[in-house]
């Protein structure tokens, strides 16, 4: 059975990737998870410099999900390269570095640093974090902005570039298309949905930031629809995510058109869910006589009345 999937020039040993911000820098999980068995690890979003993040409370539970407004606390790209990357590299992890910038120059600068380091396998452009005011979201909100960031980064690296798209737009397929045209190797989606929870006793928002991003099973059907929508619009691979808890959920995304998937919030619930996800995925493939997982990508069956296109 062949579980390999290709994301541009990067071959992943299986389609299961840990989602950014939900798996620390990867090394935190080394005692519980065999890092090299994952298709990849998207590390916590990095700016050029260290960042403080928002005041707590930073998370709140909601029905079948959670809101977060971490505010991208992080150690910055320099410390990441010096302190975390060698460890990930020596453990055989496939590393996708999630990067954030307040300006296009910042994205470019971070990319240059990462391109020179050993052990970076791909770059995921976070142009979709809903929790920070000045930052990537201002690019990810529009096709033009997305295109500018992707082009700028493209011009300084041959590493696979994966812009990560926000679902908080009316036309996500149009943004995926802009990313493809600007030279992205793949797109990943979705980041969290901008959301709010209120403490009715105090009449204050539950999060210190006021608003936050919704993740977890609650968002999965919307994420699946968006992956399907984008798969109709682009030919580059799609990395799908949003509420994946089980192999069944992984399959839903793959059938909708995702070549690989990321698992975020589920890590909090079950930090070593990977062996079971992989085993259940294999079981499905063998039960359906599918030799290569790539052959399942985008195999959604539709009747005439079910054909749907957003544009």
């Amino acid at each position, binding site marked *: 059975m062949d579980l390999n999937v290709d994301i541009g020039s990067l071959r992943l040993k299986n389609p299961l990737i840990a989602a950014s911000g939900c798996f620390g820098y990867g090394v935190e999980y080394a005692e519980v998870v065999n890092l090299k068995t994952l298709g990849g690890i998207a590390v916590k979003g990095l700016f050029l410099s260290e960042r403080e993040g928002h005041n707590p409370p930073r998370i709140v539970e909601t029905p079948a*999900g959670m809101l977060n407004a971490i505010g991208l606390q992080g150690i910055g790209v320099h410390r990441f390269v010096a302190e975390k990357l060698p460890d990930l590299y020596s453990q055989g992890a496939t590393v996708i570095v999630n990067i954030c910038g307040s300006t296009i120059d910042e994205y470019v600068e971070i990319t240059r640093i990462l391109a020179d380091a050993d052990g970076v396998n791909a770059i995921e452009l976070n142009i979709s974090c809903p929790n920070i005011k000045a930052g990537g979201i201002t690019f990810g909100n529009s096709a033009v902005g997305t295109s500018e960031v992707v082009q700028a980064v493209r011009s300084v690296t041959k590493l696979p570039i994966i812009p990560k798209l926000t679902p908080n737009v009316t036309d996500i397929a149009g943004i995926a298309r802009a990313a493809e045209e600007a030279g992205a190797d793949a797109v990943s989606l979705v980041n969290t949905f901008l959301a709010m929870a209120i403490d009715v006793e105090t009449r204050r928002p539950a999060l210190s930031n006021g608003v936050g991003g919704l993740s977890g099973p609650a968002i999965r059907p919307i994420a699946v629809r968006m992956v399907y929508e984008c798969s109709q619009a682009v030919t580059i691979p799609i990395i799908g995510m949003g509420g994946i808890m089980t192999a069944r959920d992984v399959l839903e995304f793959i059938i909708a058109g995702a070549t690989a998937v990321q698992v975020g919030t589920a890590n*909090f619930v079950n930090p070593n869910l990977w062996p079971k996800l992989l085993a259940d995925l294999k079981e499905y493939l063998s039960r359906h006589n599918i030799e290569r997982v790539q052959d399942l990508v985008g195999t959604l069956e539709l009747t005439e009345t079910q054909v749907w296109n957003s544009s």
Partner: protein
Amino acid sequence: MPVDVDARVVSNIRLSDDYNVVCLDAPALALGAQPGQFVMIKPVTGFEPLLRRPFSIFEVLPTSNSAPTGFSLLNKRVGIGTEILYSVEVDQEIRCLGPLGVPFTLVGPPQEAWIVAGGVGLAPFLTLASALQQSGTPTTLFYGGRRSADLFYLDAFTQLGVELVLATEDGSRGESGLVTAPLERALTASVVSAKPTLYACGPTPMMRTVAGLAAAHGRPCQVSLEPVMGCGMGGCYSCVVPVCNSEDEPTHFVRACLEGPVFDSQTITWNRL
């Protein structure tokens, strides 16, 4: 090294309308557990609630010196997760990840240990008291609750040779008022004799006061903090607390699951907690 196990409920001891102790069968988890460490509990298998909750390890079971078979949790129902834990049934299985976090640093004789607990903040201290007893460290527990019926396991502490100083807000047991009042008097009186190390867990205002008293009397103090946690593994950056380790360093956020839950009280920037 943490393990993630389905632990069988051995007993659910209702202490009051709000408090209970859940005993769990989990030898692999209990084996390496140290005082002050915690576990992440998934109260239900479904999505309501979705996330795990952190709980201090209350006792390592059995409490005798034989090999551990499991551990217990002290629970107070305040929200949906603790409500579920209050009503768990024997033989039910609960997913538990642990032991996690930085344990207490133990003092030894001739030094004294003064433990300060408020309400459910008692949770990390039974294991601490047994470890202190094993080293022969004179130990006092300053324990405060709302009312007499909210003070638990007093005999267990007494059997460990712990001296008790009690306070209740309604005056129904021990001194009337907050437990920090007798603590302050004892600290003032102890300037020359005992040189206690303080250990505190409870409501934030109580811990802030204890930290202030410790600083004023030049005593070391370890606090066990209980911020909201998402994962317990350092993955999500939700459980951060503001710390400052030296004067030339600005206050910054560190993850309580990895660098805590036990902290030196002097490093916490209390007015930002």
